C-alpha cells in the first residue's frame, strides 16, 4: 500500500469511527410524526398535538376474548383493579361500579357549582316553587325511585340537570358487571396512560404492565380462564408495534438480503475476500446515512432505518461494477486504473443522477421524506467514494475472481435475439400509459392513514373496539384558545351557549365541554353568590311549598347543603382526582407553554353521534355571536388535506428531481439525444410499474412515488452504461449490470414482504422497476436489427 493509500484508508477508518459514534448516540423515534409537517398551520399543529401527545394518543383499548362472559367480566374487573394500583395509568375503566360511585359523589357534592340552572332566579320563591313542582312530577315517574333519596338534599333537582349534560347514550353494554362488546364476545376495558402516546418506550412499558396484570388476573381465575386472551389497540400500541415491525424489518430483512447478496456475490466472484471487500461500501454507506440524518435532524425516524435496506440494493452495485469490470481489480494495478479511467466516470454520473433525484426530497416540509433524502444522498456518496478510493487500496494483488465475461456474452446474444426491441418498448409504453389513463381517478390514495405503519387488520380491530366502547373518533370539534385555563373555560362557556341553540335547532345532537366538568371560576363565583343565606332560604321555602305536596320540614338537609355550598372552595382541576372526570377533563384541555386550548367535540345529528355536521353553519353561528377565539376543526378533512398537500408537494419535488436529472445529463453528456437515450428506458420502467400497480388494484401512495424516484436513481446507472456499451468492455459491463440488477431486485424484493405497509410499497415498486429499467435500457440501446 502506498503512503497515499494508507492515508486514504486511515481517513476512511476515522470517518467510520466517527459515524459509528454518532449512530450509537443518536435519538431514535418511531411514530407517525415522520409524516407530519415540520412547520404546521395552527390547525395542523392541533392535529399533530392530538396525534402525538393528545389524550386520545394515551388510550389503550383492550378486548378480552375466549372463555365465557362471566369469566371474561371477572378477569376484566381483576385486571382493572391491578392496573389502578399502577402509577403508569391515569385512568382505567371497564364499567365496574367503583368509578361510577365516585363520579356520582363528585357530581352530588358540587351540584351548586356545576348546575347550569343556578342563578338568582332559581332560588327565588317563584323559582323554588317551579323546581319543586318539577321534582314532584319526577318522583311520580318511573325513575322516581332513584330520585327519592336525593329529594331532601336536592329538592330542585340540580343533580339531574348535571347528569343530563353528560349523557349521550347507553354507553357500552354491561355484562356481569363489566363492559362487553355488542355481540357479547369480548369484555372491554380501556386504560389511559400517564405518558404521552409518542413516548414509545413508556407505552411499551404500559403495555407490559397491562399484559402482566391480565395474566395474573387470568391465572387467579382458575384453569377455565386459561382460554382467555387479551388484545390491545390504540395509538400508543400501534407506535410500539410499528417500532418493533420496523426494527424487525430493518434487522431481519437486512440480514436476509445481506445473506442472499453475499451468496450471489460468492457465486459470482468465487472469492471470500472479494465478497467481504464488496460489502464495505454498503456498510460504510448505511453508517454514513444514519449519521448524516442524526446530525442534520437531531432525531432519526425508525422508518428511515427501514430504508437502510434499500441502500444495500443500490450501493452494492458500485462494488459489483468495480470488481466485475476491473476483473477483480487484480493481477496488475493497471486494471484498476483502467476501471478508474473508463468506468468510474459513468458510475460517478450515475451517483450524481441519484443525488439529484434525492436532493429534491431534502426540500420537503415533512421530516420523513427529508430524512430519506439526506440518508440516501450521504449513503450513496459514501458508498461511491469508498468504492472509488478505498477499495482499490484494500484489494490484495493476488485477488482473483471468476471470469464472468462469458455470462455477459450470453446475455448480450439473448438480448440481440429479441426482435424489434425499440418497437416492443414503444408498444409496452403505450399500453402502460393507456392503463394509467383508465385508472387516473383512482391512481392516488389521498388519506393520511395510507402512511400509517399499522396494518389494515389492526386498524379494523381498533375500529371495532372503538365502536363497542362508543369512543368512535371525533370528527368535528370546536377549539377555543386563550392565554390561561380560566380564559379558555370562560370562552368555552360562551361557545356552549351558542351550541345549545344549535342543539335546539337540530344541527348537532350535542357536544362535550371541559367547562361542564370544571366551570370557569367566574361562573362558579356567580353561581355561589346567587345562593341565598340559610334564614332567607328557609323563609322562601316555606312560601314556595305552602301549596305543594312536599313538606318543607323535610328539607332541612337542603338548607344545610346550600349553606355549605356558599362557603365551599371552588372546584379546581385537582378536585377531579379519583373520578373518571379527571381523564375526561384532561382529554378536553391542551396546554403548551402559555397557550391553552379547550376542545368541544360535537356529536353529529344522526344516530349514535354519526351524521354529517354542517360545519359552515356552526362556524357562522359562532361568528355571529362574536366568539373570535373559537375555530371549528374537521379532523378527518384536516388530516386528509394535510396528506393531499404532502402528496402534491412530493409529486412536485419528484418532478423537480427529474428535471434536475435531465439537466445534469444534458450538461454531462453534452448531447440531448444521448440524454434522451438514458432517460427513455427509465421513464418507460416507471410508467410500467405504476400501470402494473394500478392494474393490481393498488392505490399509489407517497412511498410508491419515492420508490419510482429510486427506480430512476438505480436505473440511471444501467441506462448510462448501456449508452456507453459500444466503447468496449461490453460482455463485462453487461455481466456487471445483470449481477447488480439481481442484487437490487433481491434487496427490494425482500422489502415487499415487510409487514410495514410503507416499506412494502417501496419494495413492490422498486424491485420490478429496477428490473424493467435494465431490460428497457438494454432494448433501447440495441439497434433495430430486424427492422
Amino acid at each position: 500500500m502506498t503512503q497515499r493509500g494508507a492515508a486514504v484508508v486511515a481517513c476512511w477508518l476515522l470517518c467510520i469511527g466517527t459515524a459509528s459514534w454518532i449512530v450509537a448516540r443518536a435519538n431514535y423515534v418511531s411514530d407517525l410524526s415522520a409524516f407530519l409537517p415540520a412547520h404546521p398551520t395552527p390547525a395542523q399543529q392541533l392535529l399533530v398535538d392530538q396525534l402525538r401527545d393528545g389524550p386520545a394518543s394515551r388510550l389503550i383499548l383492550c378486548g378480552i376474548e375466549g372463555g365465557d362472559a362471566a369469566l371474561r367480566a371477572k378477569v376484566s374487573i381483576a385486571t382493572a383493579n391491578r392496573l389502578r394500583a399502577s402509577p403508569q395509568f391515569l385512568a382505567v375503566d371497564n364499567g365496574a361500579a367503583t368509578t361510577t360511585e365516585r363520579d356520582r359523589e363528585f357530581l352530588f357534592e358540587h351540584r351548586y357549582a356545576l348546575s347550569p340552572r343556578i342563578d338568582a332566579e332559581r332560588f327565588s320563591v317563584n323559582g323554588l316553587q317551579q323546581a319543586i313542582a318539577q321534582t314532584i312530577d319526577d318522583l311520580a315517574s318511573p325513575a322516581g325511585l332513584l330520585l327519592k333519596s336525593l329529594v331532601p338534599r336536592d329538592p330542585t333537582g340540580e343533580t339531574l340537570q348535571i347528569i343530563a349534560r353528560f349523557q349521550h347514550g347507553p354507553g357500552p353494554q354491561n355484562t356481569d358487571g363489566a363492559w362487553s362488546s355488542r355481540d357479547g364476545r369480548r369484555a372491554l376495558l380501556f386504560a389511559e396512560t400517564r405518558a404521552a402516546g409518542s413516548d414509545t418506550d413508556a407505552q411499551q412499558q404500559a403495555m407490559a404492565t397491562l399484559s402482566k396484570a391480565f395474566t395474573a388476573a387470568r391465572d387467579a381465575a382458575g384453569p377455565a380462564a386459561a382460554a382467555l386472551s387479551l388484545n390491545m389497540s390504540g395509538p400508543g400500541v400501534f407506535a410500539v408495534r410499528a417500532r418493533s415491525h420496523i426494527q424487525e424489518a430493518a434487522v431481519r430483512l437486512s440480514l436476509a438480503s445481506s445473506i442472499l447478496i453475499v451468496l450471489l456475490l460468492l457465486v459470482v466472484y468465487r472469492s471470500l475476500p472479494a465478497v467481504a471487500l464488496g460489502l464495505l461500501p454498503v456498510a460504510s454507506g448505511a453508517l454514513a446515512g444514519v449519521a448524516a440524518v442524526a446530525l442534520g435532524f437531531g432525531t432519526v425516524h425508525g422508518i428511515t432505518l427501514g430504508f437502510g435496506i434499500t441502500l444495500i440494493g443500490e450501493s452494492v452495485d458500485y462494488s459489483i461494477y468495480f470488481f466485475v469490470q476491473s476483473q477483480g481489480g487484480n493481477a496488475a494495478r493497471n486494471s484498476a486504473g483502467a476501471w478508474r479511467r473508463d468506468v468510474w466516470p459513468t458510475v460517478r454520473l450515475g451517483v450524481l443522477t441519484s443525488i439529484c433525484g434525492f436532493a429534491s426530497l431534502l426540500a420537503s416540509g415533512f421530516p420523513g421524506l427529508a430524512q430519506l433524502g439526506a440518508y440516501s444522498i450521504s449513503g450513496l456518496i459514501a458508498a461511491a467514494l469508498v468504492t472509488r478510493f478505498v477499495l482499490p487500496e484494500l484489494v490484495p494483488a493476488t485477488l482473483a475472481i471468476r471470469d464472468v465475461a462469458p455470462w455477459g456474452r450470453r446475455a448480450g446474444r439473448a438480448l440481440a435475439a429479441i426482435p424489434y426491441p425499440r418497437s416492443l418498448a414503444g408498444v409496452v409504453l403505450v399500453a402502460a400509459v393507456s392503463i394509467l389513463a383508465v385508472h387516473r381517478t383512482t391512481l392516488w390514495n389521498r388519506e393520511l392513514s395510507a402512511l400509517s405503519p399499522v396494518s389494515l387488520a389492526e386498524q379494523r380491530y381498533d375500529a371495532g373496539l372503538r365502536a363497542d366502547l362508543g369512543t368512535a373518533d371525533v370528527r368535528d370539534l370546536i377549539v377555543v384558545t386563550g392565554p390561561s385555563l380560566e380564559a379558555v373555560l370562560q370562552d368555552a362557556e360562551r361557545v356552549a351557549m351558542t351550541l345549545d341553540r344549535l342543539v335546539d335547532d337540530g344541527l348537532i345532537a350535542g357536544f362535550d365541554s371541559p367547562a361542564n366538568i370544571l366551570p370557569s371560576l367566574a361562573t362558579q363565583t356567580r353561581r355561589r353568590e346567587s345562593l341565598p343565606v340559610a334564614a332567607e332560604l328557609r323563609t322562601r321555602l316555606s312560601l314556595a311549598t305552602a301549596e305543594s305536596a312536599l313538606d318543607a320540614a323535610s328539607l332541612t338537609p337542603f338548607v344545610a347543603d346550600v349553606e355549605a355550598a356558599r362557603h365551599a372552595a371552588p372546584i379546581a382541576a385537582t378536585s377531579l382526582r379519583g373520578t373518571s372526570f379527571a381523564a375526561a377533563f384532561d382529554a378536553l384541555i391542551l396546554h403548551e407553554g402559555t397557550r391553552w386550548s379547550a376542545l368541544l367535540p360535537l356529536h353529529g345529528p344522526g344516530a349514535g353521534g354519526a351524521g354529517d355536521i354542517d360545519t359552515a353553519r356552526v362556524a357562522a353561528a359562532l361568528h355571529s355571536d362574536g366568539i373570535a377565539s373559537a375555530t371549528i376543526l374537521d379532523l378527518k378533512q384536516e388530516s386528509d388535506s394535510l396528506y393531499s398537500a404532502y402528496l402534491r408537494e412530493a409529486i412536485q419535488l419528484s418532478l423537480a428531481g427529474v428535471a434536475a436529472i435531465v439537466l445534469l445529463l444534458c450538461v454531462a453528456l453534452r448531447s440531448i439525444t444521448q440524454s434522451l437515450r438514458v432517460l427513455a428506458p427509465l421513464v418507460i420502467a416507471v410508467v410500467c410499474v405504476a400501470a402494473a400497480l394500478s392494474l393490481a388494484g393498488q392505490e399509489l401512495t407517497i412511498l410508491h412515488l419515492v420508490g419510482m424516484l429510486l427506480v430512476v436513481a438505480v436505473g440511471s446507472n444501467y441506462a448510462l452504461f448501456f449508452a456507453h456499451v459500444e466503447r468496449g468492455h461490453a460482455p463485462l459491463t453487461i455481466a456487471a449490470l445483470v449481477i447488480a440488477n439481481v442484487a437490487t431486485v433481491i434487496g427490494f424484493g425482500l422489502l415487499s414482504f415487510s409487514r410495514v405497509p410503507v416499506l412494502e410499497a417501496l419494495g413492490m415498486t422498486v424491485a420490478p422497476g429496477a428490473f424493467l429499467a435494465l431490460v428497457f435500457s438494454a432494448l433501447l440501446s440495441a439497434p433495430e436489427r430486424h427492422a
Partner: protein
Amino acid sequence: MIRARILLVVLALGCLRASAAEDDFGALMQLLATRTHARSSFIEQQFLKLLKRPLESRGELTYEAPNRLEKKTIEPRTETLLVDGDVLTIERGHRRQVLSLRDYPALAPFIEGVRATLAGDRAALERLFDVSFTGSLSRWTLMLVPLNADVAKSVARIQIDGTQDDLLRIEILQPDGDRSLMTMRRAAAP
C-alpha cells in the same frame, strides 16, 4: 290415639293444601307463559313519607312475550317507560333516555319481578326472589321478597294479586315504609 290420628289427618290435609298451592303456582306460571300479549289500564298511587298527599297517575301497561314491558303514563303527564331485554328507555316530553337495566340495580328488581310474573318465568322469579304463593288459580297472591341484600335496600317486598292470568294489583313496599299501589283492569282486546 285419636288425638294422634287427628294430628295425622291435619298434617295430611296440610300437605295436601301445600301441594295444592304448589300445583296452582305451577299451573299459574304455565297459564301466564302461554300468553304472548297482555294489556291493562292502571291507576298508580304512591304513598311517600316525603309528601303530604299521595301521588296519583293513570295509564296503560302492555306486555309482549318474552321480555318487552311498556308502562305508558297518560295522566298527569305523558311519559313512557319501555323495557326490552336489558335496555330501558324512558321518554318524557321531548326527552328520551336510554339506559342499561343492569346499571340501575334499584330499578331492576321491580321491573324483573313484574316482567317475570307476566312471562310465567318461574325460574327467573325464584332466582331473584323468595316466592310464596297463596290462594288458588281463581284468586291468587304472589309475595316476592328479594334474595339479594343490595336489592332489599330499595325493595322490601312486592305483592302481586290476580285472578287466572289477569294481574289485578301490584303493591311495592320499600324498606323505609314508602309504598306504591298499582290497580289494573284488563283492557279490551285490541
